[in-house]
Structure formats: C-alpha cells, structure tokens
C-alpha cells in the first residue's frame, strides 16, 4: 500500500478501536468464564501455570536482556514462584463455588469482577504478568494486560504462553490478551472504558494515580521505601545476612527491598562489621558522595542504575567495589528531603543511619516513610516484642517483616503473608487495598441472607447449583439447517436445532447422492 493511503488510514481511532475490540472479546470471555465450575477452572489454571513454569528460565533471560534490569537466576525463581508455586499455594482454595454458612443463614456466591485491566512494570515484568493472569484465572476473570513498553516483548510472550495453554485447556477465547503497542493515550482510553471492571495497576505513581481517577474501580500500588530497624537485641550476624540477601535479590528490584538500615547506636559498629562479613561493601564517606551524585544527581532516581549489580554500580561511580560484594552500604547522617539517599533505591545500594536509641530509630523510620513509600513495607530485626509493636504501630507501613529479608518477606515469600507481586498500600498510600493482593481481591460475593427471625427456617442449599446454559466459548460459528427449506427433508426432524448431528449426517447423504449423480 502506498504511503499516502496508509497515512489517511492511520487515524487516532485505530488504536482505540483495536483496544475496544480486545475489551469486547474479553467481556464475552468473562461472561462465559463466570459460569465455569471449579474443576474446569482448576484444569485451566493448572495448564497456564505449568506453561509459564516451563518457560520460567527462558523468559527470565529474555526480561534481563530486554530491560537490562536484574539477575536472570533470581528472575527465574520469581517466575517459578508465580507459576507452579502460586498454583500449589491456592490449589485447595475455592473461589468458584458457593459457601453455605448455616448458623448465620447465609449463602455466599462468588461473583468475578469481569474484565481485569492489568498494568505491569518493567522491573518485574514476567513474574507480575504470570501472577496477575493466574489470579484472574483462579477467580474466573478475563484479563487484558498493558505491559510496560520497556519490557514489551518478554511481557507479550509471557501472556501469550499462558493464553495458549489456558485456551487449549478449555478457557473461553480471549480470556487472556495483551496490548502489543501500549501508549499513554491508549492506556488512558482503556482505563476510562466502561468495558473494564477493575484496574490492577502496578507501576509508577502517575500511572497509579491515573488509574484511580479513571472512574473505574482500581487496585493500585504505590512505591516503597522500606526502613529496616536493627535494635540492640537483634542477632546482628543473622540480621546482616538477611538484609544482604534481600537487598541483592534480583539487584534490589522488588519494591519491598530495604532502603535504609536504622541501627541503634550501641550496636551500629558491630552491625557494620557483620555487614562486611556477609557480602556488603561499606562505602567510604567520599564514596558516599559519589554514590549520591550517581543515584540522584539529576534530582530523581537514575534509571541507569536500576536493577544493576553492586559491581556495575561501583564501576559507574568509579568506586573499587570488591568482586564478591553483593551490596554497597552508604552511611548517611540524616533522613529527609535533604538526603537523597534516604529515598527509594531500586538497586543494591543500602542507606545506613545511626539512631541514639530504639525510640529514636522508630522516629527516623517514620520519617523515612514520610518521605515516600507510605502504606508499603518495613522490616525490623529484634527480639523485643515491645519494640516490634511500637515500631509497627508508629511507622505508616502496612506490613512489617520481622527478622526476615524484606524483599521476600513483605511480599509473602519468607513470611506467612500472602505471596504477591502487587503490594496494596492502603489508605496511607492512597490505595483501595492495604493487603498483599491475592485472588480474593478480584471477586465480590453475593450474599443470600435469610430473615434472622428463628421462625424462618434456612433453606437446604447443599448439592444444588444455579443452572445456566452451557457457557459459549467463542470457538465456532454454528451452522444449522432450517426445517422449512429445500434440503430439510434430508435432515432427521428432531435434529433441526442440533449442529453436530446435521453436519455429519447430511454430509454423508449428500456425498452419496452426489456420487450417484456424477456416475450417471
């Protein structure tokens, strides 16, 4: 096609028109999927999870190659956790069947949201997509994904792998779709569309705010900036080991990673030594200045160091970082707007600040989250429940990992919190959900509530189900013959409305006749 015609055809409405068709297909898939029973859903979730698991390593490498963020081996772990791991975790939970509560005379029916619009990040692209897809499938929702443009290729591949497996396992067509060319106007259009039912937004603050102002229900997550308090009662060697493990995991790309260590003065030096023994490089004061310049020289966080290793960062800053160092520790003297290193750092550079006593440490931790990361995560290493309690009640974080690596712990992988790749930041963080996002957040329940008067008996709902016609799957266009038309006499009368019978029956009859005709 020549350029002039191509240009005339390339109006603004092309993109939105394409998106509307995706959403329309997703809407059909969602209304079909909502009628599936648990066994069918389980088979689909399992197939999608296994398909994702099979490409966990391949797509981990693809993600690092495409974005330049993180560590393939760690991304592979995350991809495995969010596929087979997630399936195993929820396999005994039922988000599809009714619940009967006899003593309250209530029956609860799960009602899927419908079409979930998922925004996914460049930092954890594949695992976030796997995670959101499986959550949607477990709860019988359709999902349309808008990946971060920087991770577009690996993201689309991740979604397609799961979509193919889910559809092969019997899911309605279009239940998982991905936008191939995400752009800001397009995302705005979809977020405001009446065709979506909930936005599941993981991304930068502007994106999340935009989701909330779209007019559609949204579950948005904000940035983190986790303080980690280490008090005098802590096992310092263990604490240092866990913090290094967390801060170096996937080069600190999870938003739950520790930002600044707040150490009680009495143990601060010993803690620094423990860090040194456990793979941290403690930067000299002049090196801290260089790091500050490298990370925040332009005013906001330098994307060039996002998800890079300690060695690469050292190289960029002109600091000799030992080859075996997993993180860089930068000691600072204050928390606040006048110390950029007290902001969120999605790279293995960890702030370190001394507090005169535990109370002071709590105040400083509170200040850190006042700077950014409200409603997100915090960690504490302590054997003192009173300190842990005070810290948790004071700091505006909605999850506090205790004696655990925060990256993994706050995200539910080294604690008993719900494992997630989407952290609800609650009212503190201007979000609608304050928990780790899990399947339950994508369904509502219809509650059948009987009169509480004891004279009104509760019905027997066991063993019955609402009977709907078989869900349509979008796989085939029916073809049927009428009963009052030429050729109808070749069709058995009762089969007038049955597609399958016709097709074979008539084909056979007609072919026989045709053969006879041609023989003449």
């Amino acid at each position, binding site marked *: 096609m020549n350029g002039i*015609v191509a240009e005339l*055809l390339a109006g603004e409405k092309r993109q939105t028109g394409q998106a509307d068709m995706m959403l329309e297909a997703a809407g059909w898939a969602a209304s079909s999927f909502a009628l599936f029973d648990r066994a069918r859903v389980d088979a689909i979730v399992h197939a999608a999870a296994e398909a994702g698991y099979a490409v966990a390593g391949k797509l981990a490498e693809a993600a690092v190659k495409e974005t330049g963020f993180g560590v393939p081996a760690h991304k592979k772990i995350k991809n495995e956790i969010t596929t087979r791991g997630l399936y195993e975790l929820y396999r005994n939970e039922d988000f599809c069947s009714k619940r009967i509560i006899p003593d309250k005379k209530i029956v609860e029916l799960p009602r899927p949201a419908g079409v979930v619009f998922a925004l996914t990040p460049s930092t954890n692209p594949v695992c976030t997509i796997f995670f959101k897809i499986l959550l949607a499938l477990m709860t019988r929702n359709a999902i349309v994904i808008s990946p971060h443009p920087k991770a577009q290729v690996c993201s689309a591949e991740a979604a397609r792998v799961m979509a193919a497996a889910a559809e092969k396992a019997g899911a309605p067509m*279009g239940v998982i779709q991905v936008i191939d060319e995400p752009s800001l106007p397009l995302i705005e259009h979809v977020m405001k569309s009446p065709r979506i039912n909930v936005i599941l937004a993981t991304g930068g603050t502007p994106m999340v705010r935009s989701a909330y102002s779209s007019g559609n229900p949204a579950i948005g997550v904000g940035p983190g900036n986790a303080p980690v308090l280490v008090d005098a009662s802590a096992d310092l060697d263990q604490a240092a080991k866990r913090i290094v493990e967390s801060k170096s995991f996937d080069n600190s790309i999870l938003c739950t990673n520790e930002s600044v260590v707040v150490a009680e003065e009495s143990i601060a030096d010993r803690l620094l030594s423990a860090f040194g023994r456990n793979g941290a490089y403690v930067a000299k004061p002049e090196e801290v200045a260089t790091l500050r310049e490298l990370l925040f020289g332009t005013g906001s966080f330098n994307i060039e160091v996002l998800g890079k290793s300690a060695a690469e960062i050292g190289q960029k800053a002109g600091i000799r970082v030992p080859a075996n160092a997993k993180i860089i520790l930068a000691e600072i003297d204050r928390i606040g707007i006048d110390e950029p290193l007290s902001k969120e750092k999605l790279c293995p550079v960890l702030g370190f600040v001394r507090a005169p006593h535990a109370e002071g440490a709590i105040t400083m931790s509170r200040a850190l989250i006042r700077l950014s990361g409200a409603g997100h995560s915090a960690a504490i290493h302590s054997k003192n429940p009173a300190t842990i309690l005070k810290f948790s009640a004071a700091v505006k974080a909605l999850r506090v990992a205790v004696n655990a690596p925060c990256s993994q712990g706050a995200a539910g992988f080294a604690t008993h919190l719900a494992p997630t790749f989407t952290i609800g930041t609650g009212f503190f963080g201007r979000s609608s959900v304050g928990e780790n996002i899990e399947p339950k957040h994508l369904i509502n329940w219809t509650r059948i509530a009987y009169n509480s008067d004891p004279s009104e008996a509760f019905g027997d709902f066991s063993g019955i189900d609402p009977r709907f016609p078989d869900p*349509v799957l979008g796989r085939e*266009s*029916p073809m049927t013959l*009428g009963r009052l038309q030429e050729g109808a006499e070749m069709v058995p009368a009762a089969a007038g409305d049955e*597609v399958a019978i016709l097709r074979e029956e008539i084909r056979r009859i*007609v072919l026989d006749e045709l053969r006879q005709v041609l023989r003449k």
Partner: protein
Amino acid sequence: MMDAPKGTKNQQSPAKQEFIEKSKAFWNPNKTQFWQDQNVDLVIDRREGYLLYDMDGRRLIDVHLNGGTYNIGHRHPELIEVLHRGTTRFDMGNHHFPALGRTALAEELAKVCGGGMQYTMYTAGGAEAIDLAIKCARNATQKRKILSIVNAYHGHSGLSVATGADRFSKTFLSDRPDEFFHVPFNDLNAMEDALKAKDFAAVIMETIPATYGFPMPVPGYLTGVKKLCERYDALYIADEVQTGLMRTGEMWGYQRYGIEPDLMVTGKGISGGMYPIACVVATERAAVWLKQDGFAHMSTMGGAELGCLVALKTLEILQRPQIRPIVNYISETMHSGLTEIMKLYSDFFVGIRQCGVVMGLEFDYPEGAKPVMKHLYEHGVWAIFSTLDPRVLQFKPGVLMPNALCEELLERVERAIGLARDECMGSKSRRRKAAE
C-alpha cells in the same frame, strides 16, 4: 431510555404524521403505506452502533442492518474518521487513471480473497457489480446464458434483476427467459441437467440466499455446484453481498463452504454504510477483458476513492484477531438463546437457519414472519421478513454486537415471538414450558 410504547401508530407525533404524508406524496406512496399497514411506522432519525432511533425517539435494536450494510455498526467511529481524513486530500477521483485508493483496495482484496482472485473492478452499488460480474463471465466464456436459483435475488439493475425471481423482473418487463434460467436451490441434479449442454457462461449463487430467507446450502451443495461449473465450462459467481465480511464466521461465506469462485461480488457492508461502493473480485481468466480492452467497461462513481478508503478500513477492522472469537460468541449466544425460545413456542417457531450471524427464523404459519416483525417492532427490535418466503424472518445481528445488547435482544425476541404466536395460533393452547 425510550422503552415506553411511545411513538406507536396511535401516538405518532404531528411532525411524524406530516412527514409520512410527505413521504407518500413525494417518495414512494405504496411502500410508505405498506409499512403503516404492517404497524411498522419507522422513520429512522439518529443511528449509532446497533441502535436506531425513530424520529419520535423510539429506540430499536437493528437486526436488519439493511442486509448487512451496517455489519460493523451504524456510523462506526473509525469509518467516520477515515472518511473525514480522506476528504482532506481525496474526492471520488478520475476513473480513467491509475488511482491510489482503488489500487490499494484491490491489492487488499486480492490478499483477503486468495485463490488467484487477482483483479478488482468497482461499481457504486451491488446490483451494478452483479451486472459487471455477468459481463465478465460472458466475455471470458463467450457464452450468454446465466443460471441462478429459483427465488434468487441479486439486485434490480438490467442483468441482475433478470437473475432473480419474477416478483421483481416482470413488473418492469425485464425478465429475459431466453438468457436467464433458474433451478431449485439445494438440487444438484437440476443444476447438472441445466448445465449439461455446456452453453452457460456462469452460475451465480448467493452463498446463502438472503431474500429467500437464508435457506442453508446442504453440506456438499456448493462444492457440488462448483464442480459442475468446472465440468461444464461455466464460471462460478459468488454473490457475497450479504454473506461476506465475517458474517458466516469467515471473511467470505464461500470460504466457510470450502469453495473458490471465479468471480466474487461484495457490496453493502464493505462500506459500512458510510460511502457507496461495491466490488467485483475476479480471477485472471474471468477478468481477461482487463488485459484486452481496459476501456470496455467504466464507471465514474465506481470505486470512488473515498469509498475505497472506507472499504480498506472496514477490511482492516474485520481482520483484527479478536473478530473471529467475537463473531463466534455472538452466533453461539444467538443459537443457544433462540433454541431455548424455540422450545417455548415449538408449534410456531420451528426452525433456525444459521451460519454464523446469518440467520433465518422459521415460523410454521402462512406469512408468519410478518406478525413476528410487527411484535418485534413494538418491542424495540427491527428485523425484516423475507420477501420471497414470508414464513421466514431475516435475523441479522452485527458482527460486533455487544454482549449486553445480545442478551437484551434475546429477551425482547422471546416476548415478541410469544405474542406473535398467540396472535397466529390463538392464546388458548398453552405455551409449552421449556423442557426441564
């Protein structure tokens, strides 16, 4: 918004009454009166998506679509946009010269049709395109006779009207019994008897005959016809005006039935009702005149370049990956919904002819589709009876009809068919409960 029975015959606004009188005075007295007699006093004002609004404000779901013209919905925003953009640079164009829009659309149609369908010729409407296809066949075979089915309908122009039922040709003394012949549908024996003498230029088939109420070809019929054409040296012209453009679940109906025609005609929906255009797509053999004498046929408005742009956009929309599942969802939903309704009124509503969203609903009562049409209209649905078999209601949802509208449509259809059934069969006999 306008579900109250406002605007029915008794409550026409003075403006509407006055307008209808004008329509009788200046446009078409008989046809205007016919609709009033049928209690379908529709005067279409606003239109959007699959909804029509009568000039008195009544809302109607459109499942007539003017024969599939509004297949992707009335005033599709992308078509409006491309038409606007087109007018910033193009107009109809000059039909003598190589033209950017015409060639782009021809190239796209060759790709979409496949099977050696290399050339596209343009007209302003479907009937004219049928005439052109017949002329191509006559030129290529150097034979005159054309075979079509009994109760065929391919348009109202000189040659096309002669292919159709007498109903339309005799009024204007335009039947041509010496050149145009008809055989019953779904009857390969009759077809072979007619073709045996090898003196036919072409067989012309609407893949599913619309005006005859969409009787479905029995499996093997169309492939059988194509084989007979090959055996007896006649070309196969596929009239895809109503069955093309994804309505059967494939881009062209003939693809659904596994045949490759020599000539294909598309019209109506190809322009989405935004700019008139129709096309004949042909193999090299069928369009041989284009190589011999390119000036032999021409049309000033045929292939107007604005229409080409709109058609290109229509084809673009209909080739998006989501279209197939959406059409399947709609046609599956209609099938299962209508089957349930048929169970309720099984003595009246007896059959569903369906291929994708091409549907004919059969009512076992003389002219039974007319009362159904009337009650549908009263219940906010516009669907038309089949002129050549009024027991059958043409039921044509669009390929992008939204989920919720499909559900609403089925609710309204159920009520209307129930009332039509009572009107025809008497309300004494009780409606049968759905089989449990």
